[in-house]
């Protein structure tokens, strides 16, 4: 049981890191992150110089609010772009090449294989996020960073990214075409992102529901360095829901043959 899970996880890792998609995605992710990091630090630098002449402004300067939080939001956007590319092959490729027949006839449960695949893409997510840490280390070196708040932000990023991945794994189970899987998950994620924009138009009850559904609203508290169990639960529910429907989808795929 456990051995099956470990073997599929190792296979997934190998395929993920052997594929050029990972390197393209990591390249773009890190370049964009570097750009955002540089621009916000440069801006902060400029403000610091101005604050030198203006003591009132100096009191307003805050590394967390002016560099780290905007950077986190930028990483969210880049994750939105790259997550569908990382998850699209999960099941679609196995179906296209027929290896799904091999996977589904090995003595590994569907749930075990799904868990292994999901953990595989989470590992990639972890590696990508770890790639942004040198920037934070640099900030710590130059200034003083509130690490508790930063780590809280990273936890939020990881949960948000995991939610992206869960939805992406689900759309990948829907089609044998990777492009379709990627487009579906990107569209659905964008919808979950912008859904709260409707809240001002709707009545108070509906708008509360819609704001709760918004995938990015729940990240706000993390980026402020506040760990709120409600937000953690939201992401865990989101992930559990999409992994559950993926499992149902696989079952239905088996029945249809």
């Amino acid at each position: 049981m456990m051995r099956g899970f470990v073997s599929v996880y190792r296979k997934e890792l190998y395929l993920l890191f052997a594929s050029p998609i990972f390197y393209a995605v990591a390249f773009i992710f890190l370049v964009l992150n570097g750009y955002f990091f540089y621009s916000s630090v440069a801006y902060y630098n400029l403000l610091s110089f101005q604050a030198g002449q203006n003591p009132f402004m100096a009191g307003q300067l805050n590394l967390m609010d002016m560099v780290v939080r905007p950077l986190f939001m930028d990483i969210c956007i880049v994750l939105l772009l790259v997550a569908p590319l990382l998850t699209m092959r999960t099941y679609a490729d196995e179906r296209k090449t027929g290896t799904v027949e091999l996977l589904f006839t090995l003595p590994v449960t569907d749930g075990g294989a799904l868990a292994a695949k999901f953990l595989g893409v989470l590992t990639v997510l972890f590696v990508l996020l770890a790639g942004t840490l040198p920037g934070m280390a640099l900030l710590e070196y130059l200034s003083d960073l509130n690490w508790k708040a930063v780590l809280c932000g990273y936890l939020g990023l990881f949960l948000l990214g995991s939610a992206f991945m869960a939805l992406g794994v689900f759309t990948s189970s829907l089609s044998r075409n990777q492009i379709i899987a990627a487009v579906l998950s990107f569209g659905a994620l964008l919808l979950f992102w912008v859904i709260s924009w409707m809240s001002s138009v709707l009545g108070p009850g509906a708008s509360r529901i819609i704001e709760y559904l918004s995938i990015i609203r729940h990240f706000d508290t993390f980026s402020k360095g506040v760990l709120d169990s409600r937000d953690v639960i939201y992401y865990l529910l989101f992930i559990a829901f999409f992994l559950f429907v993926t499992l149902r989808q696989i079952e239905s795929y088996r029945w249809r043959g």
Partner: protein
Amino acid sequence: MIEVQGLTKFYGTVPAIQDVNFHIHKGEVVGFLGPNGAGKSTTIRILTCYMPPTAGEARVDGLDCFQKSLEVRRRIGYLPENVPLYNEMTVRRFLRFVAQAKGVEARELPREVDRVVDVCGLERVRNRIIGNLSKGYRQRVGLAQALLNNPPVLILDEPTIGLDPTQIVEIRRLIRDLREDHTILLSSHILPEVAQICQRVLILNKGRIVATDSPDALTAQLQKSAKIALTVEGDGRQLARALETMDGILAVQLESNHHSRLILETDRSRDLRPEIARKVVEEGLGLLELKAMDLSLEDIFMQLVTEEAPVEEGAVEASETAEEGK
């Protein structure tokens, strides 16, 4: 070892197989024959727990394929049709993955991989990327994968399709070596292959089992109605009507384009050729050819699988060209 009862599978509203029943005993090597779309792969996929049946049940080693899916999968080595493999992996890495998934202990892993590499003759390519391998090697990697953890049952879907003749001979030799200690079900299009390797044949057509027996017994059984080819000079239509009423003749077939060629199906218990010859003369026709046709497994297969006649023509033509060759 394998029991299948009333197995039925619908794709939407289209039946792929209907009420399929068969038993395969321990240590048997059984060939699974049928034209494309007959339901061979569907049956195999149910047995290997890839998909559940719509109705009926399949058991391997007494375990239900649907309820005890994992247990069954542990007992089966499966080579799917078209041999799906992870092209980015090396042969060794791929085999390690499958071995681990099948529950081979970490300590045993290298030895087990070495064993199947050795059996399947993969030493030369063990560190190559699967995507760069030739079709023949891919097939062998597929077979090696099925052999990992030494499962008692092997299910091979078209193991020799798309291989060149030397490779086919190699794979066949490999399968023949395996039949010592495995129960093997293999599907194939190639009838001589099945006749060579298998003790028993299951013939599937339009989702139903139409025959099951040893290749020899099938030939004997179907030759109860021995066939005689008859060619006369002139119009054979009158003759055909006369022969139809003759004792011991079961069916007469007139070739449509020229009416001088007939295929007679006769009772196998006695040789009707002298009587037929007399009849031809009585009808005032010249007798050009009169010979008994032997059925090959191929003819039997065609006979079982096609309801309408055109097959016999093919068989006659084949025997004719063979004679011309002499």
